[in-house]
């Protein structure tokens, strides 16, 4: 039981960044833009979020408030960075994969450059503690208390909140319907007066918002509020893309896909604590590869019948109606 509690406590802070970033990818792709830059957007958000935390370290305010401020900074940074992608993809009709790759390459180099110049290290190191031992009252509930309200981060609850919000926006608003139309048949959407360009810009901007926050939450929940230019976000942006495909571009399924991947990763990093797995004596490296191998297997089984948004990756050209 202790092992299960431990796994779930550690899984949630890992699952939330995956969930948020995959939701971001969903908004972008359902509007028709392939967002391979999620990895870069995450690191951009993490970088600015951690930088703002660094500058707030002398202040005597509650760490949770610092986290919220960092989140806002990361969100704004993510939106700004994602606008580089939507500018290239929507206005300049550029190849979306190439511009996304450029954005992915840009930010690790900038992080390293900045941190070497400013801190003489490969990243930003923070000592602010965001960890919550016990949530008052709720943590005393039997079973649920230890599972969800002890030894955790506030990011988990914010993440769930964003999931609900995303489901609402995606399915229950006019905006969500129009966004989805632009990813399936932009010509038809245009013919009924929807501004395809603006929809795609907003889709990418939402992915920047969620991607930036996801990146910051990754560095809070996985890296102890540090960020490093060499390791970046360890391929989480790409994993999130796989989570999105596994979740078939639908928010609720994405949530479960994110939990699945986070569970595998947590398992991989806590082999030593699980007597059964430890006694098998398998090389640690195999466990580290597990999330990536699982991604492969999942993609193999789902890609055949997967239905990506029909118009994704194709720049919208008004004259080709």
């Amino acid at each position: 039981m202790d092992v299960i509690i431990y796994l779930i406590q550690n899984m949630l802070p890992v699952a939330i960044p995956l969930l948020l970033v995959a939701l971001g990818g969903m908004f972008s792709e359902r509007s028709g833009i392939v967002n391979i830059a999620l990895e870069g957007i995450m690191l951009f958000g993490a970088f600015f979020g951690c930088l703002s935390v660094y500058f707030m370290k002398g202040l005597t305010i509650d760490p949770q408030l610092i986290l919220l401020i960092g989140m806002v900074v990361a969100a704004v940074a993510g939106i700004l960075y994602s606008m580089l992608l939507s500018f290239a993809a929507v206005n300049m009709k550029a190849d979306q994969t190439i511009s996304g790759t450029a954005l992915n390459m840009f930010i690790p180099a900038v992080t390293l450059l900045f941190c070497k110049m400013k801190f003489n290290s490969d990243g930003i190191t923070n000592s602010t503690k965001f960890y919550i031992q016990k949530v008052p009252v709720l943590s005393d509930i039997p079973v649920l208390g230890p599972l969800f309200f002890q030894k955790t981060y506030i990011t988990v609850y914010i993440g769930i909140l964003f999931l609900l919000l995303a489901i609402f926006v995606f399915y229950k608003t006019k905006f969500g319907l129009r966004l989805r139309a632009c990813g399936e048949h932009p010509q038809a959407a245009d013919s009924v007066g929807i501004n395809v360009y603006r929809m795609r810009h907003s889709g990418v901007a939402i992915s920047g918002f969620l991607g930036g926050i996801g990146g910051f939450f990754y560095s809070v929940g996985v890296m102890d509020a540090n960020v490093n230019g060499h390791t970046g976000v360890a391929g989480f942006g790409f994993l999130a893309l796989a989570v999105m495909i596994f979740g078939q571009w639908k928010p609720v399924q994405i949530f479960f896909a994110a939990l699945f991947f986070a569970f595998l990763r947590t398992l991989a990093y806590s082999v030593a604590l699980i007597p059964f797995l430890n006694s098998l004596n398998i090389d640690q490296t195999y466990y580290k590869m597990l999330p990536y191998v699982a991604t492969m297997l999942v993609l193999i089984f789902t890609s055949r019948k997967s239905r990506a948004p029909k118009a994704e990756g194709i720049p919208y050209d008004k004259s080709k109606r």
Partner: protein
Amino acid sequence: MQNNKNSSKLKMQASRIMKSKGMGSFTATLLAILLGLLFGFIVMLIASPANSFNGFLTMLTGGFGRLGDVFYFATPILMTGLSVGFAFKMGLFNIGASGQYTFGMFFALYVGMMWKLPTGIHWIACILAGMIGGMLWGFIPGLLKATMNVNEVITSIMFNYIGMYLVDMFVTNNASMYVPNLTRTGYLPTTAQLPSLGVPNSNVNVSVILAIVIAIILYIVLNKTTFGYELKATGFNKHASKYAGMNDTRNTILTMIIAGGLAGLGGAFAILAPTGITGSSMTYEPINVIAANGFNGIAVALLGSSNPVGIIFSALFVSHIQRGGTQVSSFFGYKPEIIDVVIAVIIYFSAFAMIMSSAVGRLLKKRSRKEAVKELEQTLSSEDDSLKEKTEV
């Protein structure tokens, strides 16, 4: 008048060259490079204004002082660039060149250290082993793409991570290769090292010649063979080429195998090179980081617009400013990462440089049309004058 006609003919020819596709992508690339360098200069200006101008000049020209090293460091990224570019021609984005590169490196290292072969054959066997390693790591994403429709971008990214972890594990678990106190493998025996070209003060070796020959062979394959034609046709329109009876499945797998082999060769060339720069070659250090040369290959391929001959020059260019970057950091205190920033900016702009350059072209055309109109008016008025003169006479 005769003169005028000639000059207009020349102008026509010049504009025809300017309008041709190759020229268009060339000017587009130049524009992207210019913007990237400008960005780098601005960063330098912000970081340390006093040294910025000299630093920028060193970044641009520093490589000329060490041409041998420019060629030496260009070889691996030339190979990964060819790998990415070749797959691009078929519309596949081989972002997994890093994993293939690492696998090629490991296979070459394994044969180099574990097999005892006679001098003269050993290094060739190592190169071939590297190629096979890369082919293996390209084959699987290709197979999955062709038969299961799995997006090759995500598979090959996953294969970057899987390959990196696997190779690091193989290396650390192999007691006869790994030296624990150095946290890296031992050094390759001399029989496994590539023959040096003997240029003094540089590490340039035979692999650069091999790489250029391979690039030219690829150019011929792409432009003069049925396979190359089918490959490009599939890249232009997958459905049309399938309808025309081209074997899409086979071509996809074959392309990824070749792309993987090219990247694997890059890894082999990198690790088998004899060098005076300690730790940069002949040994592998497992540090759980994905090989940067694979991603630089993407930059090289894009800059060369996926043309094998163009890729030769873009690899040399990237290597050249990287050399400049190391000099900037050692003389002026800038950090060498500035080059990575510049390269990323160049790729970002090169993604839509064609559109930018056509916009610039339209602007120039407008101006030249205005000039032409002016000329016409002038000639007309002069003819008018001569007519007047005639009537007066």
